[in-house]
């Protein structure tokens, strides 16, 4: 491993951002980390240089560029993405797409060596004509009904253009599947932690998870080493949705698709936003990614899909019974 220089992390408060900081500082306390976020995270390590940046502001690109130049950052890790759905479409677009664009432009201006962006295999989209394993070359078709997925697809398209314009900067995109583990939480985790889980009647797609440790490990490896390109970051193995739920002893509420879609449309269009629009399509069709390229680059994941899931449910059980 060559010395990475100063690492700047956007979205320090996000799960991936904060876990990456912890990992990097554990590895060696000499690493200089610059954190950018909307507000200072609670109990931030004093070794981290913190800067308040609001990526939704129109001039945030020059602000980020200033910070990067001032701190002489060489690696930028962009993890400032929502893990929670929002009904506010405009805000979502401002943060995810335009915010990422600001970060990209700032990186180009500050001439950083490496840009690492966290993405998701959800961007391939649940389509009936997906092959069983989606490789990185597969087009990102997204989900037409989900604005958050569409925004993330736009981010990847912008990144692709940005890569062509900035050939000197290495770009690494990590597309991870649904994360499970002892401490991670988002709307997917909340869906799966319900005692009674609604499911589409007659559909039982194969699912693929990754453990949070493996996900952070891949992010850390991509931050410290040269791995230009796009990688699927997924666990080994697949499991049918119904097996996943039954292994955890959950009760399954199978509902015909028209009824379930109607039931979830109204709350998700309102302010509750949970689960987001189009979520149940991800429990309808296949969108399993081929992780071979990622495993070759970042090493074999410690947890398989099944083990990631078991790790998640066992910690949930311990919490419930204390």
């Amino acid at each position, binding site marked *: 491993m060559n010395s990475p220089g100063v690492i700047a992390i956007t979205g320090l408060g996000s799960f991936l951002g904060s876990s990456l900081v912890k990992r990097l500082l554990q590895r060696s306390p000499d690493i200089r980390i610059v954190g950018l976020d909307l507000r200072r995270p609670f109990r931030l390590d004093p070794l981290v240089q913190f800067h308040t940046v609001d990526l939704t502001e129109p001039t945030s690109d020059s602000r980020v560029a200033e910070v990067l130049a001032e701190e002489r950052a060489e690696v930028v890790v962009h993890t400032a993405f929502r893990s929670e759905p929002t009904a506010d479409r405009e805000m979502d677009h401002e943060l995810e797409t335009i915010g990422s664009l600001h970060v990209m432009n700032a990186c180009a201006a500050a001439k950083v060596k490496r840009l690492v962006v966290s993405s998701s295999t959800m961007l391939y989209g649940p389509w*009936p*004509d997906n*092959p*069983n*394993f989606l*490789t990185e070359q597969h087009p990102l078709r997204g989900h037409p009904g989900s604005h958050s997925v569409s925004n993330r697809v736009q981010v990847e398209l912008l990144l692709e253009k940005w890569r062509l314009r900035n050939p000197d900067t290495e770009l690494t995109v990590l597309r991870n599947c649904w994360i499970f583990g002892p401490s991670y939480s988002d709307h997917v985790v909340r869906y799966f932690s319900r005692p009674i889980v609604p499911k*589409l*009647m*007659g*559909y*039982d797609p*194969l699912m693929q998870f990754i453990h949070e440790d493996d996900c952070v490990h891949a992010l850390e490896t991509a931050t410290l080493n040269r791995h230009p390109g796009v990688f699927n970051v997924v666990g080994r*193995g*697949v*499991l*049918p949705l*119904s*097996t996943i739920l*039954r*292994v955890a*002893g*959950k*009760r399954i509420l199978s509902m015909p*698709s028209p009824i379930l879609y109607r039931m979830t449309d109204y709350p998700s269009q309102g302010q509750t936003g949970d689960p987001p629009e189009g979520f149940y399509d991800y429990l309808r*069709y*296949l969108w399993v990614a081929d992780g071979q390229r990622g495993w070759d680059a970042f090493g074999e994941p410690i947890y398989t899909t*099944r083990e990631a899931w078991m790790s998640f449910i066992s910690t949930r059980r311990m919490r419930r019974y204390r």
Partner: protein
Amino acid sequence: MSDEIDLDTQVGAESSDVLSAELREALDGLRDEIRSRFPVRQRAPVETIDWMALAQQIQRRLSTLGMSERSGEVDEFGMDEIVLRRARPLLDLLYERYWRVDLHGIDRLPDTSPCLLVANRSGLLPYDGLMVSHAIWRRRANQRPRFMVADWLITLPFVQPFLAQLGGVRACRENAERLIRSGASVLVFPEGQKGAAKVFRERYRLKRFGRGGVVRVALETRVPIVPIGIVGAEEAHPILFKWHAPARAAGLPFLPVTPTFPLFGPFGFLPLPTKWVIRIGEPISIDHLAPDAASDELLISRMNEDLRSKVQTLIDTGLSDRGSVWE
């Protein structure tokens, strides 16, 4: 002395009897008085049901109900060994008794190396794929060819979970190549949906074999192509004509009208017990071709047509050998 004592005790007993009777009476009165003045609410004995325990018990039963017939792990295309083991008696019944399948030419199949099996498609539900796969597995325990299923069928609700567990895979090049590279044989039906939708008078006349995707997969993965002719399956679901209007509402490509369906409702979906003959032909080796042959369109088209005629010959042999549809 003894008399006196006797007498004495008798008297004493008598008087104490009277006394205790009076006392008991007074006490009873007092008790009644107390009871009437301070009534004690009598609680009827309630049979306590531990609802929580019952609910937990039911929940445990329900949640483990589905797990007994499936394994916790599936292979990467969703095939489930336990489901297959449990389905084996049914598949054997279909194979031995219902369609009385005859298998010819199993020795022509490569022993261990994967190959690309190419057969004629018939019937809406993929019974033919299941039967060929089962036939080969009965003779070669280490080999269970995965059969490819058309898009609309593998995403059809209620059908999709079962097909995946029994070894069905969505028909596309990526899947076929991945399966072959992992060492599994793959059974494909290049006619595709056109084959499944053949009406009765077109039976056993092969449709176009796609655009040569099968040959391309074989050239990419360098495995031999084995032609297979299935005779009998095309009469199991004799489609008289196709009915388009109601099918569009249900998202199906068309609604088949057979002698039994939709006349007898869901029972009409039962295939007819015709006699099946599966003929495995001589493998077509591609070892003599250069690795860059996959880009030679004319070669692919010629090989594709050659493959089609080989499958057609196998079918024709089977047809001329058999006496009737049922025997």
